Structures are given as C-alpha cells and as structure tokens.
C-alpha cells in the first residue's frame, strides 16, 4: 500500500493503482482521451501528463503505477505546459468542423480544447485527411476527426469480443478501421460511439438530428430484453431521438446492446394512436367509448358463463402495473385463462428461485464454471453475455454449452465446450456420466443458465427438473451462493410471474388458450401487447389488442386499444435477476393512446367491476401489498428455491435457439427502419460490405 502525495494531499492506495486513479480517488480530475476505466491502458494520447518530482520529464499518469513517496503535481506549470503541447499536437490534424460535427456539445476534445488549446494555430503545413470507413449501418464515421486513441479498437477486442477493428498503417498515416470495409458483427457496436472521445464515430441513426442541449433527458429502463439495462432517453418534444446507456454496475455497467439503442426510430412508426373497431371485416377508427362498448357487447353476449370463455395473454414488453390490472380485471370477470408466457416456457409458480437469474449478473464475475443449457446469451441477453466474457477473460472459467446456440461453431465471444444438442446430454451431466459433471462438482461456485430454448417446449418442466438436479448434485446452491439461473428474453416475464399472471386453477396456458380459441371454446382473447403467438390459430375468437404497435396482434384484432410504449409510461419492470426497476415517462403516447393500466381501469368501470385504484400511487401501493417484492426498487427480492420442475420423460429433440432474428425480436424493432437494415445485413441476404454514405433509411 504505497503512500503518495498529489497536489499536496497524501493518499494511500493499492499497489496496482495508477497515478490517474489515485488522483481520481482524491477528486482530482486529470484530462484524458485514450484512458477508459473499463479498457486496457494504451497511454497514447498524452493528455494525462502530470509532473512527478525527481522525474526528468512529465509522466503519463494513466499508465504510471503508483510508488511509495511519489510526489505528483497535476496542475503545475510543467504539467499545464505538457498538456497544452499534447493538445496542440492532437489539434494539428483535427479538423475545425465542430459546427457540423454531431459530437459538438458533448465532445471531450472540444471541452478540453477550451481548457488547454491555443487560440491560434502555429501549424502551416497540410492537414491529414482520412477516408471515412464503413463499420455497418449503425455507426457514422468521419475518420479525419480521429485522434487514434484506440478506445474503439480496445472496446471491440476486449468487451465486445469481436476482433475486427484495428489500427492499420503507421505514424501519421495510421487509420482506424476494419481494413476490409465490412460491417462489425457485434451486438454491442453502438457503444463504440460512446467510447469515442471525439466525433470520429457517431450515431448514424441520430445523425444531424439534434444538439445535446436541445434534448430532454429521462432516466429509464430498457425493455428490449430481460436484462433491464438502465438507459437515458433523449427526447425533443414527443420524439425519442436516441437512447443512451446509464451506469448501473450490477446490470449493464455502462454499455447497451444495439437493439435497445437503435430501435427507437420504431417508436415513431406503425403506432396505434387511436382505438379501432373491426366493422364488416375492416378495422375502422373509433372512439374509446365505441371500442369499449364493442367489447362489452361481446362480453355481455357470452351470458352466464362468460368467465370460462375469455382469456388474456400478456406480451413481452408489458409492464407490471398493466399486467396486474389485467389480471385483476379478468379475475373479476371470472376467468382463469391468463398467461404471460408467450413463448410457452414451463416456468413460474411459487418458487421464485425457479425462474430467476439467481446468481445475479454481477455475480457471474464470482463464478468459476458455467453450463449454458438451451440458450444463446449473445442474442438473448447481450449484456449478460458481455459479463460472461468478462469473467472468461479473467481466466479459470470453463464454459460448456448444451444446445440453443445453433451448433458447435457458434461464436459467443468466448471459448466453450459444446457438449451436445439436447436433453440427453443434460441427463448425462445429471447422472455424472459426463466429464463436465466433474468440472461442475469440483468448482467452488459453479453456475448453470437455462434459456427459453430449453424450457419453452412441451417437455420444458422435465428439462427444468433436470437442470435443477444438475444444480443440486453439483452443489450450486448453498447459503452464500446460488448458481441456478433462468435466462429470460422478455422484459415482462419475471414481473408477470411475480404477480402470478398465470393460469388459475384449471386454467389454460398460452398454447391452451390458442387451441381453445381455435376450437371456439374461448370466445374473447385479450392481448396485452402480445404479438408473438400464433394469430392464425385463434380461429373466430374476438380479439382485443391492447398495445402500441400495429404488428401481428393489431392485424388480427377486432378491437384495438392504443397503449403506451415503454418510453411513454411510468411503469415497473422486473429483470431476469428479479430486480425491480422503475421506467419513467420521457414522452406522451401519441394521439389518443393511453397508459396501459388506465385503459384497463377505465374498461373495468364500463364492466361495472371497477378496479380498486384511481391513480398510479394507489395502484403501486396495491401492487406492493399483493406482491411485497415489488416495493424493493432496484433490489433483487428473495428467490427461494424448492422442488420446481416436474420429473418426467424428455424427448430427444435438440434445444433450439428461440431467436430467429436478433434485430426483429419485438414490435418496436419490426417497425424500425434501422433494425430492418441491420436484419437485412446481418441476418438476411444482405452483403456484409458497403460504402460510407450508404443510406440507412433514417436519413431525413
């Protein structure tokens, strides 16, 4: 524990701290471009030079380990002069195009040039110009602005795990790029825009849209997957212009996956902004009263036994408040046929530990062996995958995969053993006949992650039982460690399971509802943003679609009730860990659309079964009463384990990856032009190369 003096203040820090980090602990800020606390140290921008006593020249504080008795001055004339020199060199080749640069107003170089830049230039020679690079449809490049800090190269290599970016050529001709002009194949590529300290890499979808000071910034929660990334929604008026990640060390650190960041243009397209009622086979715009009256008429027509003929399904982005209101409405109407598991996963019930990511996302870093069963975390929960990669990079972390990734060659950004494709291999791990069972048993903190590819099938309950047996037999569960994890894909799922949005006694699940509707046994199906079910299978049932996008559900619907998207409501979501998080409204829903729980509250009054809450506070209060864990904001409530799963036969079919197309996973993505481009490029028939300046469909 060396003690050093920085600007006259003494501090004792860990031996492997750098001078810059020690200064930060004292609250002394040292300017930097290439240093980033989550990336390896490069030491090439020279902006962090400080004066060290007894050293002949200034030192790069980001790369200098602390030493006993060091005397550092960060604001002495020597340090200031050194930084001014570094800044002058950086600005030699940097264009003076701040007025037309998208980074303007939030640019590290711009800010620091104010502090350390000269007000004139002594450079009379010709400035370097660099051809722009193609990095895919998400990132706009202006490489002449690049100061070759290599943060992007290090991010791609270390965090994203795609070694596709590099610094080619040398000296003044150094260029950052892929060299071969192909799109990056990472679901984390949008973060390159965040790590770039200048305007070389900017958000293509947000190009020339706004200046940062024009935007209203709202801190909220992402719902494109079940990770529950913390985000900041930047709006101008009612329009969401961009989404940025917000720091949460236990969830997304400071990263965000591309779908969450770039699908926001979909929030302005294909929106349901007024109620519709199907008249003579054609959807006609209607008032709320007409729409409600149409539903009431249908319900009233069902007679005495209406409760048995109606069903409700909650979609993948539904918030807890709306699901609770819908559940209570349907219970009041006498129905037991409600389900929030669109994918048909055989999970849920009283043992909360049986459907949570119990280890927690940050907990992955403490694990020492991992078995993935029927899941592809790279596509299903990109930031969980990033955390697994982070742990894997630290070493001593054997990873094995059983199915779900599409085959032994799939790239998860870390090495793994592909044990097999289906339940048979999992059974071998349970009975200990597989070699990996010993690795798990010998590990101190082993973990298993079960994906929806494993449990969203007919024998899902039996597979869940097998997975639990793996956990129990390899000592994954102890008082201070729980290595049993279910990885969800839908932001609504854990919340739905927590409040019991599940079939009641004798009730039908999603497959049962669709089947019964097809046979005419169920006459009315209420879809709360549910678009990923078999619409054709609903037969002649009367379909009420409550949601925000004109997707599969709305096309099938007989009545459309326009709801609010995740950026337009104050609502609660529970992530795959069981972490309760609050999303906040950044903009109002378009047109006549309303927050979802208010629609249900209003309809309950029409049905003369008024729900017992008139405002959000009352609803939340009620919600916490019913499910106490909902009151633990940003906490993971208890996840008790138990004998979940059902012993039974498993069939031999391989675990399939449930993700067909990462970029088109939900209604917002399917409405987004940017996501359509990505899908064509990465998942479809598009060619993986192009020229800069290629249209993204978001221009203008």
């Amino acid at each position, binding site marked *: 524990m060396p003690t050093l003096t920085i600007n006259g203040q003494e501090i004792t820090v860990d031996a492997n701290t750098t001078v810059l980090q020690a200064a930060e602990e004292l609250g002394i800020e040292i300017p930097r471009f290439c240093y980033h606390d989550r990336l390896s140290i490069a030491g090439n921008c020279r902006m962090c030079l400080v004066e060290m006593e007894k050293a002949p020249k200034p030192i790069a504080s980001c790369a200098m380990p602390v030493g006993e008795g060091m005397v550092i001055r960060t604001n002495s004339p020597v340090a200031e002069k050194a930084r001014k020199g570094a800044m002058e060199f950086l600005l030699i080749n940097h264009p003076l195009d701040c007025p037309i640069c998208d980074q303007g107003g939030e640019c590290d170089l711009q800010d620091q040039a104010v502090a350390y830049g000269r007000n004139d230039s002594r450079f009379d020679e010709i400035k370097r110009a660099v051809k722009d690079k193609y990095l895919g449809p998400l990132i706009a490049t202006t490489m002449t602005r690049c100061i070759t800090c290599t943060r992007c190269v290090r991010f791609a290599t270390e965090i994203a795990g795609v*070694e*596709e*970016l*590099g*610094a*080619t*050529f*040398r000296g003044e*001709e150094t260029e950052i790029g*892929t*060299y*071969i002009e192909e799109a990056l194949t990472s679901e984390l590529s949008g973060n390159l825009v965040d790590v770039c300290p200048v305007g070389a890499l900017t958000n293509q979808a947000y190009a020339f849209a706004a200046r940062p000071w024009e935007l209203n910034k709202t801190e909220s929660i992402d719902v494109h997957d079940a990770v529950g990334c913390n985000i900041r929604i930047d709006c101008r008026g009612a329009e969401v212009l961009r989404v940025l990640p917000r720091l949460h060390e236990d969830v997304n650190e400071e990263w965000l996956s591309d779908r969450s960041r770039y699908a926001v243009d979909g929030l302005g397209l294909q929106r349901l902004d007024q109620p519709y009622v199907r008249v003579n086979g054609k959807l006609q715009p209607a008032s709320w009263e007409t729409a409600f009256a149409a539903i009431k008429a249908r319900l009233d027509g069902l007679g005495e036994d209406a409760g048995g003929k109606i069903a409700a399904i909650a979609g993948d982005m539904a918030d807890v408040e709306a699901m609770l209101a819908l559940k209570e409405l349907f219970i009041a109407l006498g129905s037991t046929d409600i389900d929030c598991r669109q994918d048909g996963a055989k999970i849920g019930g009283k043992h909360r530990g049986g459907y949570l990511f119990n280890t927690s996302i940050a907990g992955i870093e403490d694990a020492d062996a991992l078995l993935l069963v029927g899941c592809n975390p790279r596509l299903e929960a990109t930031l969980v995958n990033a955390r697994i990669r982070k742990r894997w990079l630290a070493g001593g972390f054997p990873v094995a995969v059983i199915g779900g990734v599409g085959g032994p060659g799939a790239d998860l950004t870390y090495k793994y053993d592909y044990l097999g494709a289906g339940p048979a291999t999992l059974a071998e791990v349970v009975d200990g006949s597989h070699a990996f069972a010993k690795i798990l048993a010998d590990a101190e903190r082993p973990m298993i992650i079960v994906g929806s590819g494993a449990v969203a099938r007919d024998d899902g309950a039996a597979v869940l039982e097998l997975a639990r047996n793996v956990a129990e037999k390899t000592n994954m569960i102890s008082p201070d460690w729980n290595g049993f994890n279910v990885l969800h894909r839908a932001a609504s799922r854990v919340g739905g399971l927590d409040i019991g949005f599940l079939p009641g006694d004798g009730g039908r699940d999603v497959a049962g509802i669709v089947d019964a509707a097809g046979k005419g046994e169920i006459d009315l199906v209420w879809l709360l943003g549910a678009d990923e079910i078999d619409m054709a299978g609903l037969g002649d049932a009367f379909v009420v679609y409550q949601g925000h996008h004109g997707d599969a559900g709305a096309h099938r619907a007989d009545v459309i009730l326009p709801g609010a998207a995740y950026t337009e409501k104050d609502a609660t979501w529970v992530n795959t860990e069981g972490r309760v998080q609050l999303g906040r409204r950044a903009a109002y829903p378009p047109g006549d659309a309303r927050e979802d729980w208010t629609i249900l509250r209003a309809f309950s009054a029409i049905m003369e079964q008024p729900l017992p809450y008139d405002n959000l506070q009352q609803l939340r209060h009620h919600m916490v009463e019913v499910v106490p864990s909902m009151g633990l904001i940003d906490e993971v409530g208890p996840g008790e384990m138990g004998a979940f799963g059902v012993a039974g036969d498993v069939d031999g079919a391989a675990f399939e990856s449930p993700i067909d197309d990462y970029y088109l996973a939900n209604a917002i993505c399917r409405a987004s032009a940017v996501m359509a481009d990505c899908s064509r490029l990465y998942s479809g028939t598009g060619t993986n190369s192009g020229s800069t300046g290629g249209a993204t469909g978001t221009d203008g």
Partner: protein
Amino acid sequence: MKRVPAPADQQPDSFAFTAENLEVAKRHIAKYPPRRQASAVMPLLDLAQRQHENWLPRAAMDAVAEMLEMPRIRVYEVATFYTMYNLAPVGQHFVQICTTTPCWLRGSDDVVSACKSKLGIEMGDTTADGKFTVIEVECLGACVNAPMMQINDDYYEDLTAASTIAVLEALAKGETPKVGPQSGRHTTEPAGGPTTLREFMGDG
C-alpha cells in the same frame, strides 16, 4: 509516401502456400511455444510475399491469419505497419533507392535521376512492361557504401549515375549484375584501398 493496397479487381480470390513453403512455414511456427504461434506472423507474411510475385494480396494475409489462428485484422495491422510488405503489385525488379542524408550527400540525387531517365517513370511508378518499380526509401543501413539502392534482396552500392544505369540495363537483359559496391572496392574497405593491417595482405 502513403502505401495504397491494391484495389479489389487486382486482388486474387485465394492464396495457398506451396507444399514447399508450407514446410518452411511450419518450421517458422515451430520456433515459438504452443499457443504463441502468432509470433510467426512476420516470417510467414514474408514467405507469402516471396511466393506471390513480391506483393501481399489480402487473400495471403487471410491465409496467414487462418494458419496462425489469429484475427485477420491483427495480420492486416502488421502487414500495413511494415513498409517492406508490398500491398499492391510491384515490378519484377523492385528498386528502392535510399535518399537519406548520407546517401544524399554522396549523390543519391544522381541515382534517382538516372533511374527516372533510364526507366522513363516517376518515383513510385512501375514500368509498362512490369519489370521495374522504383521507390524512394529511408536509410537502408549501408551508409558506408553510399549512395546505394536495393533491388529485391540485393544491395547495389557506391553508385554513380553510370553504374546505376549499368545495373538496370543488366537486369533488363536478364543478366545478374555483380552485387555490392559498383566502384570496384571490396565490401566496406576504405575507398582508396586498405590503410591498416596491410601486412596480412602479403604486399608488405
């Protein structure tokens, strides 16, 4: 001078080491410990360049990357960083004239203009028949025999305009000119003949 990679239409679709070179490549790889095979990237790129008419197409870099199990971009970084890897086709005789201070003081301007006038091309160009490419390079470490030029693997030193032209003419005819000093002196001995240790030469 900025090196520009060959455009796509000049890039071959594939590259494979010959059986003979594959053996050489394996010997290079065997010099490094297991899982450190990426260290062999530079000799392998050189080998590929020698096999492929003295330039390195992208397919060759990709082949080396695959052979060494390293990401392609890491090979591109190496190949573009070092100027001795040619990224675009060059002439059969790749003439590199040193113009750094010692050679310049000793008359490298004459060598340059002799090359230009003899071959009828500018620095950086290739003759129409594809036989010669001439470029200007920084110090090649033969200052004691300045001025000098390197053609493929050979140094031609103590040049004058006349001897430069003689070397080029010989190469153009398919002959093999004498490598080393063109002035008649032996290797790096003093220009006026030996001044010390003469007794060992037998003349007293």
